[in-house]
């Protein structure tokens, strides 16, 4: 049998800064620096131990300010793609300790409009009033038309995630609950079928993690968490073209945008030698309630069209077989601008596998699955993490 490609790659440090609706006194640069130092401290490392960075251009700022160059740097990666890039860099010897940092503060100031990262600039969508809630709503509505998926299923997802956040002392919306599905359905409508409480929030904060070669990880403060597999699925640029459910590529009719992430999940599970039944924690990305239903179908946890029923039987809540988004996600924990939120599913999965989460710790968690993206955005990334190396 071939060696696992990431057998020597571990996540050794994670940190979320304080998250808030508005972080007074910070900008994106300073909160990113704070996140980076926090993740290094968590790992028991210093800036001088870092020989690679990724996670967006603010990571380059860290290199300059701390004068740690020359280092390996990838300019592209955000969220899960950054983790996979860093894993590849470590596995191939391009770097041995990689810092992934991101942060956002002071980016959303025109509150009468939707957040700037939600508003597309393209000629074929912008004149029709599109923003992320509307983009994702068109996908959700198509699923409801085709499969009879009901608003009650969407509300169950939103109530579950918001209750997770309400129990999390680190969440921006700590102790705002409890929420029942009825509370979700009675909140004001934003973009049908999404009520206010079906949607993610906006907030500010930083998030960072440190990855290292297993030889280094063994001697560090925290138990290493291993990369078991991953995948990246794209259908094109986000928010520039009509977000259609049946948008497909020319290569394989099994893969359409409505279930984007299916190919990524198949690859991740194949690399890991695991399947959906092995996943103990589903740190799924939650921009809108329907996206959780869609991801359970895309990732193979249930059949196409069955996601609405899948989330109703207690499976996704605390103590369920596939607990979701355990810290409250973007709906309640923090959205943290356009970028850190993509990394925050990973930091929480790491904490779940280490044990000792501030809230909603999943007992005996061995394998966690993280995701980014969604059908309104034409992409989905997945990551499988484990307590034991692959």
């Amino acid at each position, binding site marked *: 049998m071939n060696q696992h490609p990431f057998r020597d790659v571990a996540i050794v440090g994670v940190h979320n800064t304080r998250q808030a609706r508005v972080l007074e006194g910070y900008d994106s640069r300073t909160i990113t620096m704070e996140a980076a130092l926090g993740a290094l401290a968590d790992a028991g490392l210093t800036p001088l131990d870092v020989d690679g960075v990724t996670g967006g251009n603010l990571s380059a700022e860290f290199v300059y300010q701390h004068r740690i160059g020359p280092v390996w740097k990838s300019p592209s990666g955000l969220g899960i793609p950054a983790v996979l890039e860093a894993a590849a860099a470590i596995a191939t010897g391009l770097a041995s300790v990689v810092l992934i940092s991101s942060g956002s503060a002071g980016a959303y100031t025109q509150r*009468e*409009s*939707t957040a700037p990262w939600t*508003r597309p*600039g393209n*000629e*074929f*969508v*912008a*004149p*029709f*009033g*599109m*923003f992320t*809630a*509307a983009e994702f*709503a*068109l*996908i959700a*509505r*198509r699923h409801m*038309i085709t499969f009879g998926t009901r608003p009650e299923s969407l509300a169950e997802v939103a109530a579950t995630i918001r209750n997770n956040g309400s129990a999390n002392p680190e969440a921006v919306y700590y102790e705002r609950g409890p929420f029942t599905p009825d509370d979700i359905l009675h909140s*004001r*409508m*934003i*973009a*049908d*079928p*999404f009520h206010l409480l079906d949607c993610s929030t906006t907030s500010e904060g930083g998030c960072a993690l440190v990855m290292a070669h297993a030889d280094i990880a063994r001697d560090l403060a925290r138990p290493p968490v291993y990369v078991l597999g991953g995948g990246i699925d794209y259908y094109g640029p986000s928010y520039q*073209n*009509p*977000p*259609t*459910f049946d948008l497909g590529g*020319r290569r394989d009719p099994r893969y359409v945008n409505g279930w984007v992430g299916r190919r990524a999940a198949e690859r991740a599970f194949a690399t890991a030698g695991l399947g959906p039944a092995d996943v103990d924690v589903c740190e799924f990305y939650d921009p809108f309630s329907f996206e959780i239903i869609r991801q359970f179908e895309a990732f193979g946890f249930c059949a196409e069209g069955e996601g609405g029923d899948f989330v109703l039987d207690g499976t996704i809540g605390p103590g369920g077989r596939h607990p979701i988004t355990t810290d409250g996600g973007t709906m309640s924990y923090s959205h943290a601008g356009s970028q850190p939120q993509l990394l925050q599913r990973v930091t929480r999965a790491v904490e779940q596998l280490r044990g000792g989460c501030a809230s909603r710790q999943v007992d005996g968690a061995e394998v966690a699955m993280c995701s980014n993206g969604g059908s309104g955005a034409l992409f989905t990334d997945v990551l499988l993490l484990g307590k034991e190396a692959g």
Partner: protein
Amino acid sequence: MTLLRAQTGAIPRPKPSSLSKPFWDGLAAGELRFQRCGACHGATHTPALVCSRCGSGDLVWEVSSGRGVVETWTTVWRPQTPEFVVPYMPIVVAVDEGWQMLSNLIGCDHEAVVAGMPVELELHRLDDGVTLPYFRPIEAGA
């Protein structure tokens, strides 16, 4: 009862590219244009250099019937920017020639929309001369 209407305010204007100029020029001339492939005869939208079905570069502009059916919709109550009057209704239209486009539904109550509803093009010229393509329900028997 809330009648869905075309927007008239300072909403985002399209900025045509060299690729999309024929589409926007077509609307100004009263036509809804799309690209047809000379190799596989499939339709392509948004404007592209190659056919979305077969990859051929043999694309020719054609004029659409402007008719189709509503494939999916959302009623928006929290606008993208304050310049949009709510509610408005983004829709994906499956156009008769076999392509899909994003637009807004107008000319009916926001609760009247159903999947598969037949719709037709209705052009609206903004005060600065930009023409936007909207869709309205096709009256029974029309």
